[in-house]
């Protein structure tokens, strides 16, 4: 590389540019490539794999919701399965008892879960750390029992069977691929909304409350309002995921929303990277595929393999996949540059 090229590269770095494009532009290109891949992918896969990937995206939305609360606001929840269930049953009851079309059940699910989350967030303001974990854990445990108790709405033990929605005839794709695209659009919307909130005033207030609650309050942040808002936003995301899951699976029953689901969300969020947006997708992949993989590896003790996977991930990447690899990638990008620009310019 000759002198002038080196100088150009150095100047570019100083301006936060790589190869003539700004960091922001590279981000957009990366995102578009990923979206393009996600659009093409279902046509190269079997129907079952498409269904699995749809679930990955749905879990990713739920983990994203949990990440807002636990990652950015520092409130641990062991009970997000309850809100996932609330969203799922909202969709199922609206479709089954009232004949509402499937796409129209998602906004009410978000709204109901938002309200539930805010109502739950109010007493939760008084709890922190293990206390909040207990209260949310209690909720996760109570969920299947409550669902069985109100059986004229929820169908009790049997649950509710739903008719799987038909794709629009003009598109000429089958049902599983159509639902894949529905989930993809909702996931992209969810990521956009979350990113906007987290990178703006609200997100900064959440992080401030997480890191220094007293200092945040002293700076004039209404901690009670922002913490309740974090709860409501988080549960609304998870509720949307629940509604989508009910639509895609076409069935809801109390057994599907046990404590294990809530724990899976927390594990997914830790493995993907707490307080990262991309971590939610890694979390979704982990929740969907690792238990199955564990089953393939050992029929006798799949739980042991699943548990071992959790341990290994946490040892290798204690900040989660995205949380640990992100900084590493940033460092590598800097290493690609021929010289440190601040030295070069002197």
């Amino acid at each position, binding site marked *: 590389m000759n002198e002038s090229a080196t100088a150009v590269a150095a100047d570019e770095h100083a301006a936060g540019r790589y190869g003539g494009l700004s960091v922001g532009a590279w981000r957009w290109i990366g995102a578009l490539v990923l979206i393009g891949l996600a659009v093409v992918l279902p046509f190269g896969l079997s129907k079952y794999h498409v269904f699995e990937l749809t679930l990955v995206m749905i879990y990713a939305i739920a983990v994203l919701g949990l990440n807002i609360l*636990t990652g950015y606001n520092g409130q*641990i929840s062991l009970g997000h399965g309850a809100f996932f269930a609330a969203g799922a049953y909202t969709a199922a009851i609206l479709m089954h008892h009232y004949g509402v079309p499937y796409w129209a059940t998602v906004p009410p699910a978000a709204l109901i879960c938002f309200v539930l989350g805010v109502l739950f967030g109010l*007493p939760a303001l*008084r*709890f922190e*750390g*293990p*206390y909040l*974990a*207990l*209260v949310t*854990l*209690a909720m996760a*445990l*109570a969920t299947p*029992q*409550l669902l*069985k*108790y109100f059986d004229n709405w929820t169908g009790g033990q049997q649950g509710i069977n739903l008719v799987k929605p038909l794709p629009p005839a003009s598109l000429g794709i089958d049902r599983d691929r159509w639902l894949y695209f529905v989930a993809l659009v909702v996931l992209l919307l969810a990521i956009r909304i979350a990113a906007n909130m987290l990178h703006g005033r609200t997100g900064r207030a959440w992080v401030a409350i997480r890191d*220094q*609650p*007293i*200092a945040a309050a*002293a700076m004039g942040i209404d901690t009670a309002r922002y913490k309740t808002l974090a709860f409501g936003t988080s549960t609304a995301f998870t509720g949307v995921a629940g509604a989508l899951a009910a639509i895609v699976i076409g069935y809801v029953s109390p057994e599907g929303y046990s404590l294990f689901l809530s*724990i899976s969300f*927390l*594990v997914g*969020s*830790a*493995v993907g990277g*707490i307080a990262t947006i991309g971590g939610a997708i890694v979390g979704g992949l982990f929740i969907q595929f690792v238990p199955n993989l564990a089953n393939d590896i050992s029929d*006798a*003790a*799949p*739980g*042991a*393999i*699943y*548990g*071992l*996977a*959790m*341990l290994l*991930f*946490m*040892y290798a990447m*204690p*900040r989660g996949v995205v949380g640990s690899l992100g900084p590493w990638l940033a460092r590598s990008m800097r290493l690609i540059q021929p010289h440190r620009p601040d030295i070069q310019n002197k």
Partner: protein
Amino acid sequence: MHQFSQQIFSGLAAGAIYASLALALVMIYRATELVNFAQGEMAMFSTYIAWSLVNGGVPFWAAFVITLVVSFLGGMAIERVLVRPVENAPVLAAVVVTIGLALIFNSLAGWIYSYTVQDFQSPFPDRPVLGALITTRDLGVIGVTLVMLFLLFAFFRFTATGLAMRAAAQNPESARLCGIPVGRMLAIGWGLAATIGATAGIMVAPVLFLDPNMMGGVLVYAFAGALLGGITSPLGAVIGGLIVGVTENLVGTYLIASQLKLTVAFALIILVLVFKPNGLFGTAIVRRV
């Protein structure tokens, strides 16, 4: 009235077991600020060890002591080998590690001993005494728990190791500067917690029967007891565990006999916590900015 007192006493017997496990949770929490979600499954695994010893012809109390020793060593080993790598990692990483441990123990127990429910003989005869207020078995469970609590109290109050452990839990940096091996104290703490859990498991197994999932519910109640008493207070954990046991029993008998028992019991506990957010005996943590 007689039935009421009966329910209180059998609630106390259940509560004694929750209290033991709650104490184990508090021990680990005080030392590391970590809720050990594997505590119940560790206790379950210890109980299986005792069960196979008894089945192999070892007399009950000998099997009991061997199990406690094995559990102590096992608990230490778990801390040293498995928990230590995430000692300085974010809290959530440590939480996930204990969840992973719980899954591993549950799955291993199912693999080694199968998921069939096993009968575990109680060392105490099941006979009503004191005007049918309480059975000898419940009395035995309460007795063993009390002895264990007394021994623990004496250990922490009167031995040098106990003092060093309290110092390490309260202020690790200063303790280290005084020459206390803080890491080893943590390992002993895990060992003791595993031993307490093993006692609770062996005491509860004759009532619940032995299967890999038997401790799930017990751990949740113990967690509730620990927090009700205040997660920083060992005495609070014991009292909290007893209160949870009695409440659970009374709610099940008088208020609601359906599947909503757990929900109602929890609603009551949460109601108490809304008014006493640090538990009944916990100290509010004062923070500086």
